């Protein structure tokens, strides 16, 4: 009963049933969706004890599905996040149309992700990878007018990534005649070194796109922002982790075997760090909460990439820890932003303000979320980041750690902006009647928030399975706890003191900024346009959220100006209009077409020898 | 004798064809065509005799009939009758 096949059957079957139900018995739809995702959690949970590998031939290929601890780690994240986001979506999506379409694609995304992590061969990996891609595309374009170009951008980048991956698969097939991952790992060094690096680069591009690695990140902010929020939570929380999952395999299973490993490590680590830094800058200047969180996601994924790239047991541990944690807290943050949107109809931080008393549970979730992100004790984020810094230093990447630290510090700015502008600040009359989000939304949020707290206190909840998962990459033996970390570092500092100190600094800083802001902000309703004879431009909007961040915006303006996004757009547009030269070929004149025919014939005849390479 | 017949027929065809090429009007060309077909019909019978193949006479008959209708159709087309 509990097997991979059942898991796929239930998830994809549930997707189709949900679609059918929508068009027949609407009431059943939600039930099907929830049951499907719950069963998913159950099966994934039970799988390790029950499952045997599944292997069958499909065409020329031996398909292999199997459960290992590494995949299990990600599968659980997918299952749980899927379940929570789906519950969250019940009320959130209630008023929308085309829910059959929505839920079908939602469940297909989940199924696709299961498929990816349980794939033991390249064909099923790619197969499920693409399923995940198109179904998530369908959800990105679910909402509104702008979704069109955003979705397209998302898909085109995904396709570039997927096709890079496919090229690698095809090259492997052509040279090793295999699609099995394990065979690939064993025989990877049989490939010529040129091929090795090609395959590695192609895979890194492939997975990098999904994990929003620079410079392939441009699809992410818009796509995250425009998707329906329950999906955004899953998107950023779990789907982007598929890239991480793959990068882990590429870096640790393939690249590690090649002679280029050091180079690959450094380059990828630096790309990760730059991603983290730049994304943080971008996040700071966002005024839309969802966009802010989107950039934040990109930044966090940058950290994770760094961790994977460094490649020491500790860094891998930290990366996977961060990955799991990010899955949860980013989902929480998006869900809380979604809850705000659900009640106020906006996630614009310049508009929405002062919801702390109206939506306390949502606020709590957001608070827990940002604390985790910031890596401040006592929540789980602290341990993860700490490990990362340590591993980076241990491996001698000192400059890298500075960049990471800078990014991490800057992250505090946008996180603060998020929570302050939405929940703190003045209460608006406009939002006087706002109520807390419905239970189906708050319950999953709060459960997850509490979970981050639990993880902070008992990091072993994550550390142990991660440790097991790392068995996939080799025999890493270590028993980790907070104090042992510090011991390894060589400094016998009392851990609890550090934790308390950092926590205290954080809280004091927050209070200080809050007070400062209250003081410099005039006590008027934020959107009461008092002009004093002058017409305020948007920049002089009186919300402190804008004022406060002006200096930062100015500081990072040069970075923002050189938008990679714009470059891509320019290339795409020019390319597309270049295709118009074909108008001169397809002129619409039948005679001209006939002339082409004769031309073709004449050319073939004259150059027959040349073309067919045969001595006439 | 045979040579003489052939030369005469050939000359006839050449002159009629020349008119057909020269025109100048469409009707001149059709007139030339009409003569050409008549010459051909007769020529086919003559060929049947030379080759001693009766079946070519059949060909001649069919050719004569079809070309008559053909020329008539052209004539009617010319006067805008179709």
């Amino acid at each position, binding site marked *: 009963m509990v097997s991979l096949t059942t898991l796929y059957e239930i998830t994809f079957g549930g997707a189709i049933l949900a679609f059918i139900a929508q068009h027949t018995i609407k009431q059943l739809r939600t039930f099907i969706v929830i049951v499907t995702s719950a069963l998913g959690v159950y099966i994934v949970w039970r799988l390790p004890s029950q499952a045997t590998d599944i292997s069958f031939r*499909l065409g020329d290929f031996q398909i292999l599905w199997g459960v290992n601890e590494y995949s299990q780690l990600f599968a659980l994240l997918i299952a749980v996040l899927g379940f929570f986001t789906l519950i969250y979506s019940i009320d959130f999506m209630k008023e929308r149309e085309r829910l059959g379409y929505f839920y079908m694609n939602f469940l297909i995304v989940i199924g696709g992700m299961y498929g990816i992590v349980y794939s033991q061969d390249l064909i099923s990996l790619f197969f499920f990878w693409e399923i995940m891609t198109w179904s998530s595309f369908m959800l990105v374009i679910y909402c509104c007018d702008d979704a069109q170009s955003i979705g*397209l951008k998302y898909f085109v980048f995904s396709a570039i990534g997927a096709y890079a991956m496919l090229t690698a698969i095809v090259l492997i097939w052509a040279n090793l005649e295999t699609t099995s991952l394990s065979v690939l790992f064993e025989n990877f060094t049989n490939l010529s070194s040129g091929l090795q690096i090609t395959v590695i680069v192609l895979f890194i591009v492939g997975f990098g796109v999904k994990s929003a690695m620079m410079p392939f990140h441009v699809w992410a902010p818009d796509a995250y922002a425009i998707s329906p929020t329950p999906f955004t939570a899953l998107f950023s929380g779990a789907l982007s982790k598929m890239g991480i999952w793959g990068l882990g395999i590429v870096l640790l299973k393939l690249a590690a075997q090649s002679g280029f490993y050091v180079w690959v490590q450094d380059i990828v680590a630096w790309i990760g760090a730059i991603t983290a830094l730049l994304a943080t800058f971008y996040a700071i200047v966002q005024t839309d909460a969802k966009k802010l969180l989107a950039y934040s996601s990109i930044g966090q994924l940058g950290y994770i990439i760094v961790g994977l790239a460094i490649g020491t047991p500790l860094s891998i541990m930290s990366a996977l820890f961060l990955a799991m944690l990010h899955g949860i807290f980013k989902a929480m943050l998006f869900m809380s932003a979604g809850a705000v949107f659900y009640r106020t109809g906006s996630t614009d931080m310049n508009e929405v303000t002062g919801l702390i008393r109206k939506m306390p549970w949502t606020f709590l979730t957001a608070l827990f979320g940002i604390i985790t992100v910031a890596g401040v004790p006592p929540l789980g984020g602290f341990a993860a980041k700490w490990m990362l810094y340590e591993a980076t230093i241990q491996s001698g990447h000192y400059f890298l750690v500075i960049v990471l630290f800078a990014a991490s510090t800057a992250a505090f700015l946008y996180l603060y902006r998020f929570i302050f502008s939405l929940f703190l600040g003045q209460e608006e009359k406009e939002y006087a009647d706002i109520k807390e989000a419905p239970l189906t939304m708050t319950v999953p949020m709060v459960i997850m928030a509490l979970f981050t707290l639990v993880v902070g206190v008992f990091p072993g909840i994550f550390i142990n399975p991660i440790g097991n998962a790392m068995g996939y990459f080799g025999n890493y033996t270590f028993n980790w706890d907070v104090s042992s970390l510090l011991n390894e570092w060589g400094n016998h500092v009392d851990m609890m003191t550090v934790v308390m100190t950092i926590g205290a600094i954080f809280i004091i800083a927050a209070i200080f900024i809050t007070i400062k802001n209250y003081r410099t902000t005039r006590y008027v309703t934020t959107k009461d346009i008092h002009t004093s004879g002058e017409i305020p431009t948007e920049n002089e909007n009186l919300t402190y959220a804008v004022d406060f961040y002006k200096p930062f915006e100015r500081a990072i303006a040069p970075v923002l100006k050189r938008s990679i996004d714009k470059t891509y757009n320019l290339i795409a547009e020019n390319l597309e209009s270049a295709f118009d030269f074909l108008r001169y070929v397809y002129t619409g004149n039948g005679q001209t*077409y006939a002339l082409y*025919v004769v031309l073709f014939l004449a050319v*073939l005849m004259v150059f*027959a020898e040349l073309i067919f390479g045969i001595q006439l | 004798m045979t040579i003489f017949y052939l030369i005469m027929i050939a000359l006839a065809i050449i002159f009629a064809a020349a008119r057909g090429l020269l025109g100048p009007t469409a009707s001149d060309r059709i007139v030339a065509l009409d003569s050409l077909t008549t010459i051909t019909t007769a020529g086919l019978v003559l060929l049947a005799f030379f080759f001693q193949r009766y079946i070519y006479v059949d060909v001649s008959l069919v050719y004569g009939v079809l070309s008559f209708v053909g020329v008539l159709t052209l004539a009617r087309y010319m006067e805008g009758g179709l």
Partner: protein
Amino acid sequence: MSLSPVQFIAVPLFAAFLIPLIGKASKETVKLVPGIVLLYLSYVALNLFPRGLERPIVEHIAGFNPPFGITLYYGPLAAFLTTLVTLIGFVIWLYSYKFIIREPFEKYYMLFMLLITGSTGIILTGDIFNMFVFLEITAIAAYSLTAFLRDKDGAEAAFKYLLIGSFSSTFVLLAILLIYMQTGTLNLADIALKMADVPITMKIFILILFITGLGIEAEIFPLNGWAPDAYSQAPSPVGAVFGGIVVKATIYALMRIVYLMFNFHSVLHFFVIMGVITMLIAEMSAMRQHQIKRMLAFSSIGQMGLVIIAFGLGTEPGVRAALFQMFNHALIKTLLFFSAGYLVFHSGSKHISALDGLGRDKPLTSFFFAFGALAIIGLPPFAGFWSKLYILLSVADAHLVTVVVLILISAVIEIVYYLRVVSRLYFKRETATDVRRTPLSGLAAMGILAVVILFVGLYPNTILDWLTPAARELMNTSEYIRTGLHLNSGLLSINF
């Protein structure tokens, strides 16, 4: 009467002759005839298939032994393609049932039946001139169907098609003429046997004539100017007929001839290059189209480029991948033309910009379009995924990494223009609501296709198990000659 391959040709032909008589009794009954015929042919196909797969059936028309009479060769390849034609034919009929309602619809069905006759004839015949005859039957039926709506554009498109098509038949005829001059025979197997003695120059020029002649209908660039016009101006089911049946049969003819008579590698390389050029140009053009059916037409050309590349590899996996791609493209493009047909009908305009918001209005039709779009791009779990993958793998096996990359680039272009339409369908604000419904028969036709596409995507082995012997048949020239001419093994030694 025992079942025999000739029924694939004779039965639809008989039906075409019968339709006018039935029409005198009851016009509505006429619509049922093609359905019945195609169901019967499916029955024939199901029965003959295992036999053809086991051992090719060589039928001697009028009882003359080859090479003195016309033979039909029903091997795995023909079995596969006739089955495909029958299947596609059936759904096209189903779709047409409510789509083609304007007079003179009985002529539509007659032309349709004749087109089936022609394409099965091309696939089955073992005689080069007979193949020409069937090519012409197919072509003339196609010209007429293009202009079936009798509008301004239809006539223009059909005229262009006919103009280029006439060049095609001239070149093919010249090639046949030269072959007869050189080998003194018209039987394909016999030609293949005797072609070895033909001087290489002559061979090359015969080949050039064939490539140009058949390349026109196989939509090789730059011979394909007619295609976008014809596809887009013909009634939608006819566009599907072109993409699903006509082009497939022609490509088969080209490849059968090339593999049988000119099996040298430089030729195949040439096909790879032409395929790449065709594919890239077509995809680029498709991207810039404003009309949905023109876009689909260019997309079809692009797909054919892909097929030609795979055929041009000259390896068994390549041929198999090409056949798989042909199969998938037939199904998927038909689905796309079907759904686009109703989208155009509901929006009242051929332009893509008019499709805004139809996804809300006509969820099922739009769903099928999106389904087809995903499938044709080559996304799993749809059938198109496998064929594209197989093509890529066989191209990589031939160490043509550049071609792999080019194919993938064109796939990205494909994604852009297909998904642009899909997004438009779903996400722009709706315009006016068209109260007319997509008829059930049309939806059923699309549904059947979608199910098959999904099924093949999930169980590609069902098709691949057929394709492997089919590909082998095309590759194994000496076996074809031996079976086609009833030679005992051992008598035969040919070297190319």
